[in-house]
């Protein structure tokens, strides 16, 4: 394995989504985004909802939408356990946009019947999907 790359593994409960080499990784933690380069100090953290970006050895940026989980960072590896993870090419942009609208609408209505927490989570998920799909296509 070359010195200047780091291995990313992403698994969701029913399959492995990604197992690749990368030059750099940017991932969403619950406390904000974290950039990881090869040789990072060992770390454990909680993954939030958002967009993961990594740079493959060819220098191409790739994107994934992540939702909830944990991450283990070792000098040569980033291992992510996610509840959900989708690669940009698998994201249905229309569906994500509609979900975003729905969640937004529900929050704006602000009636007592809605589960604000749930709506906010849905909103964040939709945003992450759109961000991942969008940056990839542009």
């Amino acid at each position, binding site marked *: 394995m070359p010195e200047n790359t780091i291995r990313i593994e992403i698994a969701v*409960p029913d*399959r492995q989504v990604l197992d690749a080499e990368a030059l750099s990784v940017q991932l969403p933690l619950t406390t904000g985004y974290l950039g990881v380069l090869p040789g990072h100090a060992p*770390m454990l953290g909680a993954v939030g909802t958002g967009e993961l970006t990594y740079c493959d050895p060819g220098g191409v940026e790739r994107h994934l939408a992540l939702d909830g989980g944990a991450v283990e960072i070792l000098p040569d590896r980033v*291992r992510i356990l996610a509840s959900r993870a989708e690669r940009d090419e698998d994201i249905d942009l229309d569906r994500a946009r509609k979900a975003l609208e729905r969640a937004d609408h529900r929050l704006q209505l602000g009636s007592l019947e809605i589960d604000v927490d749930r709506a906010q989570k849905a909103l964040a998920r939709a945003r992450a999907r759109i961000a991942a799909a969008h940056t990839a296509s542009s």
Partner: protein
Amino acid sequence: MPSLIDLRRRIGSVKNTQQITKAMKMVSAAKLRRAQQAVVHARPYSRLLNDMIGSVLAHGDGTEPAISHPLLERRETRSIQLLVLAGEKGLCGSFNSSVFKAATRFLEERPERDVHLALLGRKAVEFFGRRDTKVSGTWEQVFAHVEYATAQTIAQESVAHFRAGEADEVWVLFNLFRTVLKQEITLERLLPVLPAERGGPDANVGYDYEEPPERLLGALLPKRVETQLYVAMLESAAAEHAARMTAMDSATRNAGEVLEKLTLHLNRVRQASITTEIIEIVSGATALE
């Protein structure tokens, strides 16, 4: 002695049965392949999860107390919840009955404990529904498509039982898929969580924690219970298809043997009747001379 028509009818019906068992065997083989794949696909996540839990637990370097969590806590065992995983359908050899036997033994071995069952699969619900065992939950139609979300719901309920003190231990009983010909009855403890030892070179690196370890552990442990149950369900589904495939294969072969015997018998009867007829004609002709 059965008549020719009767024999032909029997042969016809055995042939039909054979076709059905053959088709069922083929369907099970296809489903088994998919189920096995699902088991393999679920491995990376559960391995990673176990590694992480191992790392967090190894965190205490002696100077500070080891991390504790309610889900790791061992209590005096008064009540136990046992999850019994069986099939939705029969015609799969001893797949269901061996689980029931093991579950019954589990109950008999712990007469002084308060054991209640959670039943997964229609066959389990049918079997224990007729007995006076305590049942705390039933789930049917969960094995046709084993979904993580299902395992999650069931596991969360068990975790709630455990936390509320209604169960001091939670166990799961299922058929583990060893090979196509061999299913192994397996009993695993879900709660309190039994942390797996993390091996390998990076077992004891000093991690930085971006999140307090207790909180991280609190997020990981329930997932561990869910994953363990999910994997058990996948294994059980694969084992069920394997058992059905084997059972249907032997049924098909059996039908072949029966057919052979019946055909032989049919030919004997047919020849006997022809012989009798000829004798009658010949003796009739001789009588005329």
